[in-house]
C-alpha cells in the first residue's frame, strides 16, 4: 500500500492490498461468528433449559466471560498453538486459521450468554405448549432457538462487532504478516505506529463503514423475514 495516497484514493483506485485486507478481516470475523454460533447457541439453549447444582455459578461465569480481555485470550491461544505448545504440530500459528480460532473463543461467551437469556425468557412463554405437545429436550432447544431467531440475530451482530473490532488477540496469534494475516485492525495499528495517522484514520473509517453496512444488511433481512414469518 503506497503511503502517499490517502485511504479514499486507495478505495477508488481499487488498491489490491487494501481489498485483500478487507476480505481477510471479513472472512476471519464472519467465520468466527459462524463457528461461535454453532458452539454458543446450543450451549446457551442447554443452559437455559436445564437445572443442576452450580448452575447459577456457571451463568455468572458465562456472563463475565463476555468481557474477556482479548490480549489474554490471544496469549493463551498463542501458547497453545506455538511449536513448543500442545497443538504446535498442526502449524496453525501465524495463519488466518489461528485468528479465526482466537476470535471464536472471544465471542462464544457473548453468543452463549445472550442466547441463554433469550431462550430462558421465551421458555417461560412456551413451556406449557411444548410440554402439552410432548416435545423432547432436543426438540425444545431447536424450537426455541428457531422461534427466537430474530433476537438471536442481535446476539450474532454483537459477536461480530466484537470480532471485527478486535486487534490484540489477532495481532498476537496472526503476527500481522503483510499479505497474509494483516487485517483492518492490525493494519490500522501498524500505520499508527509508522506515524501515518491520516491513513490509519481513513482505514478506521472504512472499517466502521463496513460494519455499519453489515448491520444494515442484517436489519433489512430481518425486516423482510419478519414480514414472512410474523
Amino acid at each position, binding site marked *: 500500500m503506497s503511503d502517499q495516497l490517502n485511504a479514499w484514493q486507495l478505495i477508488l483506485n481499487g488498491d489490491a492490498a487494501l481489498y485483500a485486507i478487507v476480505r481477510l478481516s471479513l472472512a476471519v470475523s464472519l467465520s468466527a461468528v459462524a463457528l461461535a454460533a454453532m458452539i454458543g447457541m446450543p450451549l446457551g439453549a442447554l443452559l437455559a433449559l436445564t437445572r443442576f447444582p452450580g448452575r447459577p455459578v456457571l451463568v455468572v461465569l458465562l456472563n463475565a466471560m463476555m468481557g474477556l480481555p482479548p490480549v489474554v485470550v490471544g496469549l493463551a491461544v498463542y501458547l497453545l498453538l506455538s511449536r513448543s505448545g500442545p497443538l504446535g504440530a498442526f502449524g496453525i500459528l501465524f495463519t488466518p486459521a489461528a485468528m479465526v480460532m482466537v476470535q471464536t473463543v472471544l465471542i462464544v461467551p457473548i453468543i452463549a450468554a445472550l442466547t441463554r437469556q433469550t431462550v430462558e425468557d421465551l421458555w417461560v412463554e412456551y413451556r406449557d405448549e411444548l410440554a402439552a405437545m410432548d416435545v423432547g429436550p432436543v426438540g425444545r432447544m431447536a424450537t426455541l432457538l428457531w422461534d427466537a431467531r430474530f433476537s438471536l440475530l442481535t446476539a450474532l451482530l454483537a459477536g461480530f462487532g466484537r470480532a471485527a473490532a478486535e486487534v490484540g488477540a489477532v495481532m498476537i496469534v496472526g503476527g500481522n504478516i503483510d499479505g497474509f494475516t494483516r487485517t483492518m485492525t492490525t493494519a490500522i495499528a*501498524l500505520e499508527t505506529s509508522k*506515524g501515518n495517522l491520516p491513513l490509519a484514520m481513513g482505514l478506521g473509517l472504512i472499517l466502521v463503514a463496513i460494519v455499519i453496512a453489515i448491520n444494515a444488511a442484517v436489519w433489512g433481512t430481518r425486516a423482510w423475514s419478519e414480514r414472512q414469518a410474523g
Partner: protein
Amino acid sequence: MSRFWSLAFAGLFCAIANGAPASAADRSIVVASTTSTQDSGLFGYLLPIFTAKTGIEVKVIALGTGQALDTARRGDADVVFVHAKAQEQKFLAEGFGVKRYDVMYNDFVLIGPNSDPAGVKGKDIATALKTIQEEAAPFVSRGDRSGTHEAELALWKQTGIDIATVKGAWYREIGQGMGAALNTANAMNAYVLSDRGTWISFKNKGDLSIVVEGDKRLFNQYGVMLVNPEKFPSVKKELGQTFVDWLISGEGQATIAGYKIGGQQLFFPDVER
C-alpha cells in the same frame, strides 16, 4: 433462503482455507524481526526482490528484539533478523541459532523537540543524556527489551548513570515499538532515542527533529541467524538458509544499500568478507 446461507458459509470456509496451515510443498519461511526494521519499510522493498528471485515467500513477524528471539526459542520462526548483538550471542550460546552473520548497520539518533528544553543540541551523546537526566527533561524509553532499548540502556551505563535508580517521572517507559515511541515523544514534547531508518520514514514527526547524531557510540548492528533445526525439526532449514545466504550475498547486500527514502540511504551493508 437456507440454500443461500449454506452457500455463504461454504464460501467463507473456502476463503479461510486459502490461508490454511502451510503444507510441506508450500515455499515460505517465517522471519522474526523487529518493529524498527519493519517500520523503516526495508522489508517492503527487500522481500519482493528476494521472492521474485527464489519463489520463497517471506512472512515477517515484527516484534521487539527480545520478543523476536523468544518467538524463535519457542520454535515459531525459521530465521531471526534483529539488532542486539549481546542478546543474539546469548541466543546462539543457548544453542537456538546455527550461526550469526553481520548483515548491515544503521545508526541511532537522539530525537528531541525543536525547542530543545534541555539544551543538548549538537552535544555528544554522553553529555546529552547526562544533561537530560540532570534537567529531568521528559524522555521516552522503548522499555521493551528491543535492540533500541538495549542500546539506550547501554548508553546510560556508558554515561555512568544507573538509570534504574535515578529514573523519575521524566523517564517514561512505554513498552512498545519505535513508531509508538516516536508518537508518544511527539505528543509529550520529549526526547527519544531512535534508529535513523524508522525516523526517516516516520510520518508524524510533528515538532521533533534530530538533536544528536554521528557519535560513534550510536552505531546499530543488525545480525541474522537460522534457527537451529536440531532444536526444532519443523524449522525450514533449506529455505531459511537460502534467505540468510541471499542477505549476505553480494546481490542481497547491494539491494540493502539500494533502499532509500527521500534520496537518503538507510542501511549500510557490512558483511565480513
